[in-house]
């Protein structure tokens, strides 16, 4: 039995321009995959291919054991998704929107709809027209629409757009709960890494249509040397002594990117150089630093 979502070497071109090159990754139940990349990297295109919204040039997308190309209904049956933005019918109320979607599945009761509405925190405004909603409220309604049929796969394209920090935290908590308690496989795309830190279990970095790295977050953070921030009386001449692991920040502070075991060795070199060390801080690498290091800037070609 494979994983819940398997994306195998998918390729996609628009005209002469190849947008995706052999994109592969997989997600298992209980995992939250952060699908990270700069704007224009191919995140949304990948998601559209996974959901059958665009045709796949080559490669396969297998969801719950069904190929999206040959068994669309089987593959999409237990998938909930938001693509680009939660586009709902503006002339209907939030509840009417959810009811329309519920109509498409068997046996979704009014109580279940109410439960979902409560889950996303929209109970007070659910009978208002969507045209009166803020972007954040539409985002919540979009998540409700994606959850209404109790999917085991959730694919969310930039779901935190338009949400305030509190809203982001709520969504984050909700997704963690869904992954843990409902054992869902969740894919969440974002260009804002800070949001995904301490929240996703796996990351997959895409740039210019190619997967740069794909691993568990724990592994991912280990990939980089640890950073130590030092405060000294003077940084003069230290660059030559310490070599390329050293990054001089200003006249009295610098950064060292070295392994834990090596730090004493470098501190000794500084003292031997006649400098005074006032402070040594071990800076834990954020997902964002790790990403920037890996993706190297945001240029789009």
């Amino acid at each position, binding site marked *: 039995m494979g994983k819940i979502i398997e994306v195998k070497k998918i390729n996609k071109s628009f005209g002469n321009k190849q947008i995706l090159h052999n994109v592969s990754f997989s997600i298992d139940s209980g995992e939250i995959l952060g699908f990270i990349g700069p704007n224009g990297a191919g995140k949304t295109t990948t998601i559209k291919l996974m959901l059958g*919204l665009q045709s796949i040039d080559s490669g396969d997308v297998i969801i719950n054991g069904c190929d999206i190309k040959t068994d669309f209904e089987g593959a999409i*049956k237990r998938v909930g998704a938001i693509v*680009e933005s939660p586009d709902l019918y503006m002339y209907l109320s939030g509840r009417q929107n959810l009811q329309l979607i519920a109509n498409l599945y068997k046996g979704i009761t009014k109580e279940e709809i109410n439960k979902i509405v409560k889950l996303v925190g929209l109970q007070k405004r659910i009978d208002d027209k969507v045209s009166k909603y803020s972007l954040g409220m539409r985002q919540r309604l979009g998540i409700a629409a994606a959850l209404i049929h109790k999917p085991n796969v959730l694919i969310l394209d930039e779901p935190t757009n338009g949400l305030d920090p509190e809203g982001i935290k709520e969504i984050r908590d909700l997704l963690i709960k869904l992954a843990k308690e409902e054992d869902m496989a969740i894919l969440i795309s974002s260009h804002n890494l800070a949001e995904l830190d301490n929240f996703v279990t796996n990351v997959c970095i895409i740039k210019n249509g190619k997967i740069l790295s794909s691993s568990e977050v724990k592994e991912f953070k280990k990939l980089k040397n640890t950073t130590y921030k030092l405060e000294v009386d003077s940084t003069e001449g230290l660059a030559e002594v310490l070599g390329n692991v050293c990054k001089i920040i200003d006249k009295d502070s610098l950064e060292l990117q070295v392994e834990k075991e090596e730090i004493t060795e470098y501190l000794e070199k500084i003292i031997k150089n006649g400098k005074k060390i006032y402070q040594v801080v071990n800076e834990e690498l954020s997902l964002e630093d790790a990403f920037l290091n890996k993706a190297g800037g945001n240029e789009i070609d």
Partner: protein
Amino acid sequence: MKLIKLIYNELYKIFHKKLIYILAIIAFIITALSGFLITKVNNNSVNALFIETYRQELKDLDLSNATNVQAYVTMQPIIDAYDISKEKKLDPNGPAQYFLDNKISDVITNYYNAKYVEKNEEKAKELEEEKNELISKLDNFDWKAYINEQLEQMKNLDEIGLTDDTAKEMKRVYEYRLNNDIPLAYTDASQELDSYLTAYASYDASNKKDTKLMNHNEKYSFEMAQAQVAKYQYRIDNNMIKSDYKAISAQSSFVGIFGSVSLFITVCIVMIAGQIVAEEYSKGTIKQLLVRPYTRSKIIISKTIATLIVVFGFILFLAIVEGVVAGVTTNSFSSLTQPIVEYNYHTHQVFTMNTITASLMKLIGILPELLILTLFTVLISALIGNTALAVVLGFILTFIPSMFSGMIDKFKPLSYLPIFTWDISEFLYGGMSFSESLTLPKAIGVDVVTIIALIIGIILVFKKKEIKNQ
């Protein structure tokens, strides 16, 4: 089963938008307004202002001038007739007024001619006496006596060997008037009988020709006249033209809606079909639908079926509005239970059907047009994803036939275009088309092929359509 859920949702969306209600309200207002206006306009009274102008012109006219005499002789009889009508307080639509307009007016005109143009005093005096005698008949006008008089005169003609068919029919109509209490007047019943005589005269004229020598147009007109005459005769034979007959009745208005793809129906089709796919693409809501466990074929088929349901519903709505407005304005709801007479062109027999059957038959006649127009607009809507453009193209399609229909017989390949074959009303009971290049098998063949091609096109386009990145 799955398709029904989708269709239900599509209908739910359509009926939660303002569009359909705006269309319905506009259709209702215009129908009601025109219905009431027609009853107001349908009034035979001469405009008083018009008479006043005549009077001014004739005032102090120098009758020594020949041109002036001519003007006087033309206008004065009209003024006289108007004054007589006013003086006698005649019902403007009644038999006395009709008698005044059709009989007395001639005598008045002749009188003025004799007096001022011919200057024949003796003749003028005779005519004046005749005129006065006729005018005196207007008080308590006895139209039956007048018709009997006419019949009496015909009897004399009969004796001297009159066998003219038209005259026979005239006699029949006079007798029918007496039996059914339909005076010669400005009533719909009376005019219906007059129309019969007109139709009979034109039929009788062609009937004397050899059909083998007729060209298509002559044959077509002859068949039409034949059918018309047969239908009238059936109604006369069965006393179906009653004295309270209304040309515009609840029945004729209700059934009439199904007879052609009118402007309102076209607007409804192109508005609903034009937006059903395009709007969801432009607003992005289509994604909510496409990530659900339904194949694209099912989604687009459900949208097309929902459009057709709304179109048929709208036609029924229009028919009811037209029927109710006509029923109220002409007090003719009882007409709905009357049978409708049709003519079978093959057996040359007349047959009847009820209001519902007649409406359904008419609907079958325009069914290809409804389907092709709807499918075409859905296709455009899916193809270009632009509501406005789909609506405009749908409209253009409906106006092409009227622009080029005269050219079909000159350029035969045109007759293979569905816009010329989609109205099969003329063929329903075995009739022929106005165009010699159009026949029923050909029309149905072209229509079926077009409909299948459009359905395949719609499914293919929708299946291949990618959700573009925003």
